[in-house]
């Protein structure tokens, strides 16, 4: 079972704290109990020693000079005193005490726990030779055993009370600790709640590039938040690009669709003969084929854009341009165009090869379609500073110069040459620009009569500088 971070933290902190507190309580109880018992036993031992000094030998008789001491004993002690010689009980207080016969080491006090009449007692046992009355030495022929027993009921009760107090205190402390832990964890996790709330408030249709910007956060969360902000920013860029390209694609398809629908509406509006039906079907097929070509290009574009970062590679731009220009030879010939090219060799960029090919082929296709008949197309590539500058210009006398700012708008079609390319299947400049932007390339257009010029700037992969400017030369034909 997976616990939430809050529960996990609470359980861990609570278990650890409770364990420590319990251990602490047990240690305190043990220390207190040990200390009290030790003091009790010491007092008992002292008592046995003191009483032993009051036992004197008078010949073969044993005198006990402690009557006054014993009578002064606090009744709560429930003190039993027994003095034996061998198995003979020489003295017993109270009389007939049921104190068990314990052997004690000579000259030192042994303490033992023994129940007497069902009650807990500590028994101090001392074996010694009573001194001869008036002498300082003790003859060795007479050995007695003195036993002093005291009930531990009092101290046990005290220990029990102390134990209860400590356990109760510990329990209260644990509860307080749990509450404090809960409060601390909740407060500590508040930034995460803030982050969660902020993230949950993001409108999926309008991504915020940095939704967590401005939130006061602890240092530990800052890298995470920074990563999320960065991710959101990249997502927004990707979504914007995706949305734009999808929009461009949808709009590119509107025109052929309108053509097919219009043709179908007309042909279905009344009964037609076979000739008319055949003619309309042929027209629809032509539109559909060109639309299919467009769709294939668009489909080729889609994965390139969505996997933009993965697809980046070193692209030999010079080689790609030369290949694309050669591929267009039939188109140049078809419209009797003169192609001048000055392509600097060895220029490479970092980007998507497939995307670069689509851009080049569509730009060249547009130039072939929209250049004046028998006009000129100039293709140039030069590396300047860190940029690979691709320039494509075509003659176009009738281009409306004031429209130059609109060439990257959706649906924009270049010039009067369009009427000669009714089934043109190339992509609009608007979509070409989106594709170029995916490789961080910039694309611009300008018109200086009679030249309509498109310039694409890619970032080169090396830092090598070049002062080469386009030097145009005509192709073989």
């Amino acid at each position: 079972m997976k616990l939430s971070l809050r529960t996990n933290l609470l359980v861990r902190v609570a278990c650890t704290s409770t364990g420590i507190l319990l251990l602490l309580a047990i240690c305190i109880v043990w220390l207190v109990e040990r200390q009290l018992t030790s003091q009790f036993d010491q007092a008992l031992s002292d008592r046995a020693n003191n009483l032993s000094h009051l036992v004197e030998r008078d010949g073969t008789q044993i005198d006990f000079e402690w009557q006054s001491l014993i009578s002064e004993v606090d009744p709560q002690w429930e003190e039993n005193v027994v003095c034996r010689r061998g198995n003979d009980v020489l003295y017993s207080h109270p009389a007939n005490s049921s104190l068990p016969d314990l052997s004690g080491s000579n000259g030192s006090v042994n303490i033992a726990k023994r129940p007497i009449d069902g009650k807990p007692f500590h028994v101090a046992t001392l074996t010694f030779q009573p001194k001869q009355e008036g002498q300082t030495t003790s003859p060795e022929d007479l050995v007695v055993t003195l036993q002093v027993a005291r009930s531990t009921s009092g101290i046990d009760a005290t220990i029990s009370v102390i134990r209860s107090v400590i356990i109760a205190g510990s329990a209260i402390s644990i509860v307080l600790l749990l509450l404090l832990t809960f409060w601390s964890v909740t407060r500590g996790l508040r930034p995460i709640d803030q982050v969660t709330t902020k993230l949950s408030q993001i409108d999926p249709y309008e991504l915020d590039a940095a939704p967590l910007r401005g939130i006061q956060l602890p240092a530990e969360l800052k890298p995470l938040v920074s990563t999320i902000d960065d991710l959101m920013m990249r997502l927004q860029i990707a979504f914007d690009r995706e949305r734009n390209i999808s929009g461009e694609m949808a709009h590119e398809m509107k025109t052929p669709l309108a053509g097919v629908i219009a043709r179908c509406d007309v042909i279905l509006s009344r009964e037609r003969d076979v000739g008319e039906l055949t003619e309309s079907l042929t027209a629809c097929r032509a539109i559909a084929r060109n639309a299919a070509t467009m769709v294939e290009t668009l489909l080729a574009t889609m994965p390139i854009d969505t996997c933009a970062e993965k697809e980046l590679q070193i692209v030999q731009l010079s080689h790609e341009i030369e290949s694309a220009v050669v591929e267009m030879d039939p188109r140049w010939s078809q419209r009797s165009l003169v192609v001048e090219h000055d392509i600097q060799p060895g220029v490479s960029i970092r980007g998507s090869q497939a995307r670069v090919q689509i851009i080049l082929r569509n730009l060249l296709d547009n130039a072939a379609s929209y250049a004046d008949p028998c006009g000129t197309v100039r293709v140039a590539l030069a590396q300047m500073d860190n940029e690979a500058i691709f320039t494509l210009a075509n003659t176009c006398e009738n281009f409306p110069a004031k429209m130059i700012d609109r060439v990257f708008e959706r649906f924009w079609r270049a010039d009067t040459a369009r009427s000669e390319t009714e089934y043109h299947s190339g992509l609009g400049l608007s979509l070409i620009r989106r594709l170029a932007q995916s490789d961080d390339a910039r694309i611009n257009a300008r018109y200086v009569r009679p030249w309509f010029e498109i310039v694409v700037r890619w970032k080169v992969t090396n830092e090598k500088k070049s002062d080469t400017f386009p030097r145009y030369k005509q192709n073989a034909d």
Partner: protein
Amino acid sequence: MRVLIIEDYEPVRSSLAQALSEDGFTVDAAADGTNGLWLARHYHFDAIVLDIMLPGIDGMEILRMLRQQKSSVPVLLLTARHTVEDRVEGLDSGADDYLVKPFAMAELLARVRAMIRRRFGDSDSLIQIGELSIDTTAKSAQVGEETLELTAGEYRLLELLCRRRNQVVTRSEIWDSLYDTNSGTASNVVDVYIGYLRKKLKSAGMDSLIETRRGLGYLVKDY
């Protein structure tokens, strides 16, 4: 009724031309803005179907130039641009209607008919002059209960005269409305059609509907 189509995409342009033609309109078509503007300036049209994104001159520019010249010809903008801003801009520039591609041809025809109707001040598709009633949607005419058997040219002529009732319509206006710029029909064809039409109206009991104004043209008076 004569309609000008200015549309650069050939499949749409040819389909529009055929549909309008089959609906009884005389159609001229231009593939770019420059030619379209020239036609609009030099010929009389009852409506213009105008694409916005055009090679040469932009459709919006054509519309502005026509309106600056006080041309009141109804204009239907036809474009793939679909946003509210685009529609507002088009209508504010002087367009009478706006249709987004792809469109249904029946809707476009209905909108063109409605524009022409509004131009002549008719509120519905039925023109009533005495016993004569013309259904401009069905392209049919009746006198009382009797249906007139008219050719396409005769119908177009009758509709034109009845729409412009109480106005003298000149021969050249009739010519412009009946024939596109590529037609090479003889110049007396208007008089011939008038003759055919009068004969059919006379047999239906309306022999005096079309009056001749010598040196000016023809007139249909409202009863």
